[in-house]
């Protein structure tokens, strides 16, 4: 098979770096509002019917949305195996917590309304809350750690070794900057959930969603700006030194890396990337205004714009780094040294080009079929088809 050589290895690597971002952003834009709704559930729904309205706004779609998460995992495995190996085992207990949340959440959705008992339902409501809010927070914490570098090194056989005792691998994740990043992520997804509920619900649920969503939007923008300032003054960056080999074998040990004063020097080298943080901040503020004004469709779009801006700003700032190592910079994973082989990247791209448009098309069709408000009447009369 020589077809794959039509596209150069470095180009494929950059495309897959972009696709990694697309998957993360797709996940945050779709499953993000499910998590936001889950995190808002105890606050926007006071009665059982109100909570069922909130749950049923995402009821028919959360399952498909969650596939973005699973596909994200699969795509990292296929396109960036070293990243998959280092990050999933490095953030071990945190990953377990996320995993537990992603197991509880589907079950909670499906099983919550299958019994009348209020204790049963209340228990599942809190399960929905925790399994939405905790991963939303932890995703940000993980990003915060990646930005600062993670303490690991690679052996000559490319075994990953982590520095420090096991509990510090978990507790050590929760440093102040990473917690701030976690706040950005949680607040952003709660804002997104608020925007979704504004579109899909009415009455008291909608009113409360707008109120809590506005607060979340404000917190998200504030924390994001604060994190940016912190990056400017308090956190060292990384950069590759020596020859720029973008077409070479995926082996981090073939590269030299050193620390720099700040990640933000990237904005001097590539000023155009400033569009990402601007979109993030502007999107957040417009969402805030939209929620206050009671705009529905445009608010959700602004919220998506904020997500796009915030997530892509992290990737663009760190490029070409994906997962730097704080304890042994030479082991750092970059776009040029931690991808799959040339052939695998090409095959996966072909598959993506074939199937991604189909996924987009049928997902859009499903949302169109389900278009419209979820009402209390529909829940109480709908009989058996609602959660």
């Amino acid at each position, binding site marked *: 098979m020589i077809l794959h050589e039509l596209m150069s290895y470095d180009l494929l690597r950059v495309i897959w770096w972009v696709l990694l971002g697309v998957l993360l952003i797709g996940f945050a834009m779709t499953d993000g509002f499910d998590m936001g709704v889950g995190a808002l559930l105890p606050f926007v729904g006071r009665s059982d019917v109100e909570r069922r309205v909130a749950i049923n706004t995402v009821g028919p779609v959360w399952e498909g949305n969650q596939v973005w998460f699973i596909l994200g995992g699969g795509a990292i*495995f296929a396109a960036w195996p070293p990243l*998959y190996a280092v990050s*999933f085992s490095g953030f071990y207990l945190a990953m377990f917590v996320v*995993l537990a949340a992603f197991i509880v959440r589907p079950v909670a959705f499906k099983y919550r309304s*299958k019994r009348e008992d209020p204790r049963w339902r209340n228990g599942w409501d809190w399960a929905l809350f925790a399994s939405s809010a905790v991963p939303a927070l932890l995703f940000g914490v993980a990003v915060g750690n990646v930005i600062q570098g993670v303490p690991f090194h690679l052996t000559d056989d490319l075994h990953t070794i982590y520095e420090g005792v096991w509990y510090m691998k978990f507790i050590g994740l929760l440093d102040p900057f990473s917690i701030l990043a976690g706040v950005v992520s949680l607040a952003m997804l709660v804002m997104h959930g608020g925007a979704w509920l504004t579109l899909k619900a009415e009455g008291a649920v909608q009113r409360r969603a707008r109120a809590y969503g506005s607060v979340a939007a404000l917190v998200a923008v504030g924390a994001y700006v604060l994190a940016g300032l912190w990056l400017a003054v308090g956190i060292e960056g990384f950069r590759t030194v020596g020859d720029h080999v973008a077409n070479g074998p995926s*082996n981090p040990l073939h590269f030299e890396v050193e620390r720099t004063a700040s990640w933000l020097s990237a904005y001097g080298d590539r000023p155009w990337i400033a569009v990402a943080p601007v979109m993030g901040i502007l999107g957040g503020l417009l969402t805030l205004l939209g929620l206050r004004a009671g705009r529905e469709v445009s608010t959700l779009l602004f919220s998506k714009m904020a997500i796009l801006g915030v997530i892509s700003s992290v990737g663009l700032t760190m490029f070409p780094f994906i997962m730097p190592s704080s304890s042994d910079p030479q082991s750092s994973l970059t776009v040029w040294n931690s991808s799959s082989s040339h052939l695998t990247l090409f095959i996966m791209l072909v*598959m993506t080009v074939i199937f991604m448009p189909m996924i987009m098309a049928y997902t859009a069709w499903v949302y169109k079929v389900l278009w419209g408000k979820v009402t209390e009447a529909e829940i109480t009369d709908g009989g058996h088809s609602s959660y």
Partner: protein
Amino acid sequence: MELGIVELSRLQFAMTAMYHFLFVPLTLGLSILVAIMETVYVMTNRPIWRQMTKFWGLLFGINFALGVATGITMEFQFGMNWSYYSHYVGDIFGAPLAIEGLMAFFLEATFVGLFFFGWDKLSKVAHLTVAWLVAIGSNFSALWILIANGWMQNPVGAEFNPMTMRMEMTDFFEVLFNEVAQAKFVHTVSAGYVTASVFVIGVSAWYLLRGRHVELARRSVTVGAAFGLASALSVVLLGDESGYSATHSQKMKLAAIEGMWETHDAPAPFNLIGMPDQEARETHYAIEIPWAMGLIGTRSLTTEIPGINDLVAQAEQRIRSGMIAYAALLEVREQRDAASPEAMATFEEHSADLGFAFLLRKYVDNPLDATEEQIIAAANDTVPTVWPLFWAFRLMVALGFGFIGTMLYFFYRASFKGMNFPRPALHLAVWMIPAPWIAAELGWFVAEFGRQPWTVDGVLPTAMSVSALSVTEVTLTLLGFVIFYTVLFIIEMGLMLKYIRKGPFEDVEETEAWMTRHRDILAGRRNADATSMPAE
């Protein structure tokens, strides 16, 4: 015995995988059965078939939720507990997993919501299409997962790259059309169809014994028996195909299943039963069927099937060859582009045996330091523990033939005796419900335990595949999963039983009322302004 990282990680994988596979077979089969029932509904417009679709669909939904939830664990566990494996073979193994997400899982997960929520919003044909898309998506999922697993059993289309210290794909189509994967796929989905058929027949039999929902139950048995008969035949046939492909790709597994220590003159006999003795390397009290093994394994009377002792001798040779490969690898890796052509040539000549040198890692850090005793010990390690494989396989096959018999009987009664089933047969059907699950778990046990000591046969030893974690971490997550999965299992079984006891939640009048209302809704929607439903 003190459990190390390797044992704990294996225990966790075995537990979570077998747990996941409690839900998968029912999803595979029930999705199709439900789609078949809905097809009959759409074609005949008879309310009873809609009632059946909704009832079995509900049970499908309860089961599906846990299948999805526990599947996430599988996908993430490779990176968490098996990070060296992920690094070493991710270039090949990751691709089918990602394609599964793109092609299959997105499809089933997106449409499963519409299956449950879309009854009032879709026309009959559109809803039927949704039901089939869920079924097709589920089954395509199985295809890609089994392509990934098939590669672990028979790693074709890939080679080792000394610069990146990992296996890399050389031919995608070889990975795709791996004969082991293809046989495994049909065998596994057929097993899922049998599971769902036995489940549907068993639950219906329970209703018939109590005289409840007789119309629904009789029709369900009929559909289940027809579908189940075809599937049970297919399971056994494709099981045989797996055996045939194992003859050239997984010789050790085949010999172990057979308890065949010495190479026998062709055609070899089949040990029907016996007592495998690992120490003495002998199978005592064997009852042999002459020629049968040779015929099943090679489909010829003249091809030999190697016994365990000969395979161990071959493994010893491959370990020695692997040590040469490892020495050359160190040189090539050190020199990079400047490596001498001799070193490259030596490496390429022996690289297929590199994995065998890694078997020595159990005894020494550097395989090149291994002593003669260690080499012999490592060669002996290539023999999996025989007796559990021997018995698990026989029990699975016996169950398989049992399913054919049962399905044949129910199919006969349904087709030629006016759906009239004697009570003892109904009792048997209820008691048979767990049997296909047992058979499926035994099958996976044979496939995975039989491949030991490898994660990827002949390429990467299990002991080397794990992450550098502490025993405490893996113990914690293992305990977490045990507690967590136990609670979920109790909840799921409770709900399943509750809804089975309750039976179909709509009676025929309700269903007819719905059908009228549904017709009106659709008629009304056509008249309404189309722009009142803008796309997002």
